[in-house]
């Protein structure tokens, strides 16, 4: 059985259920739980649910400290760029402790960060910055594209004994989808085939999954069968599912909202080039954002971002198809 809820509600549902299941789960951040009517504050009380000032270094550092001391904090950061203020705490503190202490310390914490608000939020609030964090040893990175995955990955994130960066997409917040009833945990490091196909493999991350599915749908109307794979977590990254798909299709197009050199797409391209070279019948193609900041004005914003049209074009080129409009 399942129920239909928006992406954001699915995330909140996972946090609430994990807080009910485990008293050690804490939930805090800016501009939350400020009124006695706040549902989390009402249900779990001020020991476990708190508002913080605008102090990202302290917020993430406090989560780290509470985790070392035995709790399982979830820190809500709203926009991903805000955690850049506290980059040391994100990449160079809690991520190192388990290793440096020879396993004496573990840091089970979740940092929740929204990214990619490409709806006029302009230069400083629109980045798809997840790729910056995928090579940090000790840090896991989740990037859900559907309500079901959002819930399942949040559940797993809270239960994980490591720091997890949970990236939610701002454009998807109100997207509705089926979420399984009851406990729902999606394992880390297991990609999901969002659409099966045989002619070409499209791998997309986060918001770009929607773009890829749209392109696959329009290509299907032309008789082109595209497989769409969503890695769901980018650290750990499930390369095997991608390799076995490419082994069947021989063609790989990667779609990512990030700029090319800080995209997950670039890393996947490298993995497939090394491990799946013999399967490839055409060069790997990357459809990413152009190397620029995101403008406020809509036509400029759209120009630099990947879209269905750009994906379709890359697929046509990979398969040697004539353009649809011709």
């Amino acid at each position: 059985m399942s129920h239909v809820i928006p992406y954001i509600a699915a995330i909140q549902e996972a946090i609430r259920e994990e807080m009910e299941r485990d008293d050690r789960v804490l939930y805090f951040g800016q501009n939350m739980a400020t009124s006695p009517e706040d549902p989390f504050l009402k249900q779990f009380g001020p020991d476990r649910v708190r508002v913080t000032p605008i102090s990202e270094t302290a917020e993430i550092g406090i989560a780290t400290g509470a985790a070392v001391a035995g709790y399982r904090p979830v820190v809500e950061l709203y926009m991903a760029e805000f955690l850049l203020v506290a980059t040391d705490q994100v990449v160079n503190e809690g991520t190192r402790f388990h290793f440096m202490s020879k396993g004496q310390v573990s840091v089970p914490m979740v940092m929740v960060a929204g990214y990619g608000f490409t709806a006029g939020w302009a230069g400083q609030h629109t980045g798809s910055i997840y790729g910056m964090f995928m090579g940090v040893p000790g840090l896991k990175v989740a990037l859900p594209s559907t309500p079901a995955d959002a819930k399942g990955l949040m559940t797993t994130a809270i239960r994980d004994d490591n720091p997890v960066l949970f990236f939610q997409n701002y454009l998807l917040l109100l997207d509705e989808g089926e979420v399984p009833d009851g406990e729902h945990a999606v394992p880390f490091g297991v990609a999901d085939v969002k659409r099966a196909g045989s002619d070409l493999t499209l791998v997309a991350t986060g918001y770009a999954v929607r773009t890829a599915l749209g392109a696959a749908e329009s290509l299907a109307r032309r008789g082109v069968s595209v497989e769409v794979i969503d890695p769901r977590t980018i650290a750990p990254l499930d390369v095997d599912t991608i390799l076995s798909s490419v082994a069947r299709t021989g063609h790989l197009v990667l779609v990512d909202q990030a700029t090319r050199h800080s995209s997950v797409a670039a890393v996947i391209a490298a993995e497939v080039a090394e491990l799946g070279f013999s399967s490839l019948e055409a060069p790997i193609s990357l459809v990413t954002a152009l190397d620029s900041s995101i403008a406020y004005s809509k036509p400029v914003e759209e120009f630099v971002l990947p879209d269905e049209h750009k994906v379709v074009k890359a697929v046509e080129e990979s398969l040697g198809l004539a353009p649809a409009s011709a």
Partner: protein
Amino acid sequence: MANANPTDGSAPAALGAERLAWMYTQMYRIREFEERVKSTFTEHPGILRGHTHLADGAEASIVGSVAALAPDDQIVTTYRCHGYPIALGTDMKLMMAEIYGKATGLCGGLGGSMHLYDVARGFLGGSGIVAQAIPHATGAAWAAQIRRRGQVVVCFFGDGASKQGAFHESLNIASVWKLPIVYVMENNHYQASTRTDQEDANAAHGEPLSTKAKAYSMEGVTVDGADPVAVHATLADALARARSGTGPTLVESLVYRLSAHGNLIAPPGVPLNYPEHEAIAIFGNRDEYEAALRGDPVPRFRHQLVTEGTLSAADADAIEQAAREEVDEAQRFALDSPWPAPDSGLDYVYA
């Protein structure tokens, strides 16, 4: 002394009638502009994107501060940045066009509401990331110190920003280096939907936020930010201290934001109108909000000037009429202007 108002007994020469009328004019222009930005959400849905933060309620603080600047001084602000350039003389048409995302805007539509710049008028910009422009202002003050031309930098930010490391780190350095800078914290009693007493140690202990200056051994002053003359006097003192090399000041200017923090935060497809003020929407405190409306600095200053005989009612009406016409024209210009070329997004990545 951190909390004493140094303007007590040492007020600078009184502002003349002309200057006071100028100040009222700027306050009214800002209000009219912000109301037009706000009404755009309903009158022209879809034009405004992203997040817009209005200065309504802070006009007296903004204009009192800008009025005290010398021509060569510079300012650095936040994302709540529409008021300052208006008072500095930036063309409203270019501002509205920027906020509407048009090619004719101050920044060609690349920046939008949160990222206005007018470097020629001394407005060096700000940051959409809370408190992160405070060090930039501090660096500009170092540059001013090296140039020795008597310039001062005024750094505007909110109460919420004073909980960031960037604030504390900057004030410490500015005090050690005796930088020519004035930090103006507009305390509007909220950081988005959090009340100051829920997140600020001074406020939680019933102390003014200017107390923070003590930690950096600099002057700290709290001023009624609804009174442009008081703000002007406070800034004039602080600017004089900064210019003479005595060092920085932290001014806490008490204001009340009359609109919600910003327009609704929602994905495309949802109308982005302005919610009710957080006092009502989150805390159910209609009395607080209505008291703030009664203390609205714009009509309050008009009333004061007319009552004192500084300005006739007819002159005040004329100022208001001119501001409305100016904003009408700015809006028409912005609506009629073309969109930027899509590939202009690649033009300014590197200098």
